[in-house]
């Protein structure tokens, strides 16, 4: 299984190398959130904040097609309905707030270079770690690397630095911004930290209850 995963991840990593993608969310909604209309250009980071339960996670899950939704999402002008479900999710990388692991060791899930690990403040032997022995913060950073190993064209990040200290938070911000810029990947970045959203995103929205967007100055 792990071997198979590694192979598919590496295969899918190549076509995403330097594709400039645009994400268009067109009246996406469900009984629980939206409808939401939002576009993000190549390499653009859009910041989303708002009270707990307002529907930020539901919006990201809806874009990733993990919940049934009305409306449509386009990637580079191509409608989501034209993608195979798994291919869509591989292209639109959603990082849940809590990381999940199913194999015993980190390295059975994905591969990463020592450089990538180092950039996030992790030692080169982190892939050999047992999942059960990692701290929440280590798992969160490793989950980000696992997501990026698949080479997604869009990033949907749900509180990617929630359990990190200031130094690791800065490393994650730098790394994600570099990925977005080099791949031309649009990013939807959900955070409770207003200062973080100021640092990473020029356009910012407040998600108000029942999952509607209001622009932030």
């Amino acid at each position, binding site marked *: *299984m792990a071997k198979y995963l590694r192979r598919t991840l590496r295969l899918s990593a190549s076509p995403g190398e330097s594709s400039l993608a645009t994400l268009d969310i067109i009246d996406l909604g469900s009984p629980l959130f939206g409808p939401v209309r939002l576009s993000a250009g190549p390499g653009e980071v859009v910041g989303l904040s708002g009270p707990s339960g307002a529907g930020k996670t539901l919006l990201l899950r809806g874009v990733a*097609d*993990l919940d*049934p939704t009305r409306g449509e999402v386009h990637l580079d002008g191509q409608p989501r309905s034209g993608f195979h479900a798994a*291919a869509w999710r591989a292209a639109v990388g959603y990082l*849940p707030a809590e990381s999940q692991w199913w194999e015993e060791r980190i390295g059975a899930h994905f591969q990463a270079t020592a450089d990538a690990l180092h950039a996030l403040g992790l030692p080169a032997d982190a892939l050999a770690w047992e999942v059960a022995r990692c701290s929440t913060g280590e798992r969160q950073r490793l989950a980000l690397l696992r997501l990026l190993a698949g080479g997604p064209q869009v990033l949907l990040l749900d509180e990617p630095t929630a359990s990190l200290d200031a130094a690791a938070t800065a490393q994650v911000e730098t790394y994600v911004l570099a990925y977005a810029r080099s791949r031309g990947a649009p990013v939807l970045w959900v955070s409770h930290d207003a200062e973080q959203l100021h640092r990473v995103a020029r356009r910012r929205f407040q998600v108000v209850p029942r999952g509607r967007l209001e622009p932030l100055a």
Partner: protein
Amino acid sequence: MSVIALSVLDLSLAALLVVALAFVAHRLRLGLGRRLLLGALRTTLQLLLIGLVLKVLFENASLGWIALLALVMLLVAGREVMARQQRRFVGPWGFGLGTASMFLSSFTVTVFALITVIGTTPWWQPQYAIPLLGMLLGNTMNGVSLGLDRLTSGAFQQRAVIETRLALGHTAAQAIGTIRRDAVRVGMVHIMNAMAAAGIVSLPGMMTGQILAGTPPMEAVKYQILIMFLIAAGTGFGTVAAVWFGARRLFDERERLRLDRLSHPRTR
């Protein structure tokens, strides 16, 4: 050797053992006394009833009546499978999934055995058809209900893992793969253990019954081997079918995990 017929007195003596056990359970406040007696009573009535049905059926063997009895057995087994699920599929799938799987495997295996192995004329001769189907349904029922229960409870407990894998671009089959494999294993482990222990640790009930009823041991043993093989095939195919279809049903056409298709567990 002839069958030693049991009298009502003989059975009453055996029943005394159960009554004694119920009395002890009552004194120890195990809260099992009533249920034990009720279970013994149900066994007696249900078996007497099926005895009567079989007696009539054997005397008036016709395919229609046998099919009707087989259908009733299947529906009761399907009901039992559904009742044993902590989280069952809502709507017609709750009953249909297990029932269809049991129908596919038990009926196919029974008909196969009747036609090719036993070879009676007509092939549906009730002395063979009904007991065979009963043995198969009873065992397949266990495998299917255990497998389905493990599948749905596993998917519920590990939904975060499944959705993480989906989010990473895995297909539904990859994301549920481990749980699906576990579920089939749980459904099949009983019959595999039974085959391994047969004759050494345990004397299977059917063979014991035949020997008690006067059948030469080697004939009884050969029938038991046949039954073991049929049960293994029936349970295995039934469990695989139920778990595979169930795993498909857990996802929709966009391969989203749809736990809203499962009911909430009953509070006992």
